[in-house]
């Protein structure tokens, strides 16, 4: 029952939040600041992770394809893996760990120090001023971060595959160009948008409903990571099945 109640609360919270997104967008400066906080400040970790994931893809992909004499398909394999799965999913998991916890702890501390109460007393809706810009910042940043992850991942894959393992450069890129379709790209974009909504919603909701104590904020940040990760993987399955 408590899971049903929490889901219901989350849904109502989302509806209230969506109603405030329009007014929040009328204050672009706030949203841009949050895109910077959630997006630009996550770039380093996303690009580093993308690079290493791409390199591992290059290594593993080469090893696997070599058994079937299909090393030239490494580019296709890396691109499809990154665009359709690894890019959106790993970015979402990194986002939950870095930006999500930051959002949760920031909003949770604002509640613990009465800042949200003070806003309500000043007749300013905290959902509109604090929560909605942070939610929008996460939603907008996620697909952009996933795109960066994919680009850097492909660079890492070609660095290992082409430079190290000796896969033909032309084959690497031309097979990718010939076999990767727009639908594959769209699948990744849709996934990253959906993960962005899910992870950002969980992060701001956890912070907004955190107990106003040190322990409460700590529990809320843990909840953000766990819930965002599990929900991301669940949604990944659902969306993958829907696209196939």
């Amino acid at each position, binding site marked *: 029952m408590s899971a049903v109640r929490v889901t219901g609360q989350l849904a109502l919270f989302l509806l209230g939040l969506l109603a405030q997104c329009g007014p929040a967008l009328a204050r672009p400066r706030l949203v841009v600041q949050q895109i910077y906080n959630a997006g630009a400040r996550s770039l380093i970790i996303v690009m580093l992770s993308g690079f290493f994931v791409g390199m591992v893809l290059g290594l593993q992909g080469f090893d696997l394809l070599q058994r079937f004499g299909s090393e030239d398909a490494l580019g296709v394999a890396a691109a499809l893996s990154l665009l359709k799965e690894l890019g959106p999913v790993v970015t979402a998991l990194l986002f939950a760990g870095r930006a999500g916890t930051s959002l949760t702890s920031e909003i949770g501390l*604002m509640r613990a*120090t*009465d*800042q949200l*109460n*003070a*806003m*309500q*007393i*000043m*007749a*300013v*809706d905290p959902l509109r*001023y604090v929560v909605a810009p942070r939610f929008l910042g996460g939603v907008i940043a996620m697909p952009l971060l996933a795109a960066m992850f994919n680009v850097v991942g492909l660079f890492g894959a070609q660095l290992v595959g082409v430079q190290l393992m000796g896969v033909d450069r032309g084959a690497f890129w031309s097979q990718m160009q010939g076999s990767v379709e727009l639908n594959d790209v769209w699948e990744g974009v849709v996934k990253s948008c959906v993960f962005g909504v899910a992870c950002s919603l969980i992060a701001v909701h956890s912070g907004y409903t955190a107990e106003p104590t040190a322990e409460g904020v700590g529990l809320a940040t843990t909840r953000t990571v766990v819930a965002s990760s599990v929900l991301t993987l669940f949604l990944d399955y659902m969306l993958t099945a829907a696209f196939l």
Partner: protein
Amino acid sequence: MIVDVRDVEYEIASRVILSGLDLTVRRGRITAIMGPSGTGKTTLLKLITAEAAPTRGRVLVFGQDLATLDRAQVFAMRKRLGVLFQNGALLTDMDVFENVAFPLREHTDLSEPLIRALVVAKLNAVGLRGAAELMPAELSGGMARRVALARAIVMDPEILIYDEPFVGLDPISRGVILRLVRQMNDGLGITSIVVSHDVHDLAQIADDSYLLSGGRVVAQGTPQELAASESAVVRQFMQGIADGPVPFHYPAPDLRTQLESVDER
């Protein structure tokens, strides 16, 4: 009467916080609400600001029953009052100037020069014009509370509510806050509600006082009348007696029984 609390009961998680509470705040006066810890003073403030609704009874502010107001009307009512929170509750990502300007930016279309003039004037009123560019983390407790006071008055409210304004302050800062409370009331004609258990400080500035205990008003009058009261609970509070109608010991089983059960364990 600008605030009228009538036969209010407030219950949460099966615990009765307030019961049969009657209280009025007269326009233009400083009303002190005092009482032991946990007696419902902060809860009463939440009822007055419509952060909470009573289980029974009515709370009228500016003649309006808060229970009949919709969300927009509650927000409109809140624009006419200011609250000074115990810890100031400044927005930590803005400097002092932006904190004080915040209500003006959110609720008015004033030009930037006019906002600047208003903010500087309010900071000057609390003696912190020179601190406009500091961040909240750089302020002392007393300074943070003064900035919060400047923010609370920037929209020229009709009621100012002070929630424990003297807690944790050194004597000089307390003197400053006392002076400011009186100045806001006399100079700007703001009705002030001060929640505190600092009897001696409140006696210097309060016009009317209410003493809460057990979730209801047990005494009311001027601070001098309360100080002269013969009531045991009023005397215990006003004189700071450790044990009396408000007991020293938290409810516990018989000491012998408790010691014996420890031995058995």
